[in-house]
């Protein structure tokens, strides 16, 4: 049965991975998924819907949204991914690793097209995504939760790597105000400034981050 259990994603990445183990019914789940794929390839729209309903939210949350950086862009990309999957599912060949690696590869290609077409500053560069695509087919055989946790860990590491390149005070302001979404007054107290001064600090912090992310080499490629 295809079940995606809720995992506490607030835990530290290493701890998160340690807690996740292969579910005992994984072979059954894979076989069930294989049957769904076969039915969808034969034109069964209900099977197609169930396949995408199972993987789509994780694909949006852990692959598209972090890389494209906006909900609107990620939803547009998801729609394109679905259209391509519906049109080209007959090209998919089951290889034992499940449907996810193929679906993720399609999503990375679409995300790469979006990044190439866009001018917004995001954490992933075109080259980063192209490298990910090169290794996408070698994704280890894992379950959906573990894949999502790995994606999540990689995204957070990328954010931390970017923050490490600006002044610690700026990084702290972004961490509290943007990442943790703490109230303005609370962050101002934590940094020992007035709320008005905090606004300036956050503005300067974002400017500094924009500058390092716009630099030709973001030195985030290994992340």
């Amino acid at each position, binding site marked *: 049965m295809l079940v995606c259990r809720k995992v506490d*994603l607030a835990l530290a990445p290493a701890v998160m991975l340690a807690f996740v183990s292969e579910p005992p019914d994984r072979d059954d789940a894979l076989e069930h998924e294989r049957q769904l794929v076969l039915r969808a390839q034969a034109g069964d*729209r209900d099977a197609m*819907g169930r396949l995408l*309903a199972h993987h*789509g*939210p994780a694909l*949006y*949350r*852990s692959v598209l*949204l*972090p*890389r*494209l*950086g*906006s*909900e609107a862009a*990620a*939803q547009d990309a*998801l*729609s394109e991914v*679905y*259209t391509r999957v*519906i*049109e080209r599912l007959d090209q998919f060949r089951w290889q034992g690793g499940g449907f996810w690696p193929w679906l993720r590869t399609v999503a990375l290609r679409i995300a790469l097209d979006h990044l190439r077409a866009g001018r*917004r*500053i*995001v*954490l992933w560069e075109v080259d980063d995504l192209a490298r990910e695509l090169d290794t996408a087919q070698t994704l280890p055989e894992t379950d959906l939760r573990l894949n999502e946790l790995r994606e*999540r860990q990689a*995204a*957070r590491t*990328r*954010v931390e790597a*970017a923050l*490490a*390149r*600006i*002044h*610690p*005070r*700026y990084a702290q302001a*972004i961490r509290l*105000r*943007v*990442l943790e*979404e703490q109230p*303005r007054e609370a962050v101002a107290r934590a940094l020992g400034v007035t709320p*008005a001064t905090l*606004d*300036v*600090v*956050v*503005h*300067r912090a*974002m400017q*500094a*981050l*924009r500058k*390092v*992310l716009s630099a030709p080499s973001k030195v985030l490629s290994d992340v």
Partner: protein
Amino acid sequence: MSDRPDSEVDAPPTQEEIARAEELRAALDDPRRSDESAELARALTAAWSPSDLAPERHRAIFNRALSLADARRHRARASTASIGAGAILALAAGVCIVVWAARGPSVPPARGAPSPVAFSRSTQELFAERFSPRGGETSRIDRIALARGADLRANEFAKWGVR
């Protein structure tokens, strides 16, 4: 890490900085407001703690993809059909031309057979004598024009079958 000194980090803000900081604060509080720094902040949030996709939104995206895929399939079929019809028409036209050419009266002359029409050629045969170093151009042009005019008329008569 940035090598920006603390003094620069804590430097008094300019009026422009204060205005931009206020815009950013408003944009952070209201996702509908557009601001470059706020967009980057949203990208950070999307990577750090990505939000879930609402089930009804997911359903709408899936349905839109289904419709789009159907529309593309229909367009592809229509396109294939029109290409096929065009190919059939072109083939029929080709067959007609071949049949018409095989039955038609104007069969091209076999190589070596005398041509019924005069083709373009050198004007050397019109001038047996040597040219004088100066003058005589107009008379030579007149001679060429007369000869080629005669060729033209002869060709027209040949085409009409009255020669």
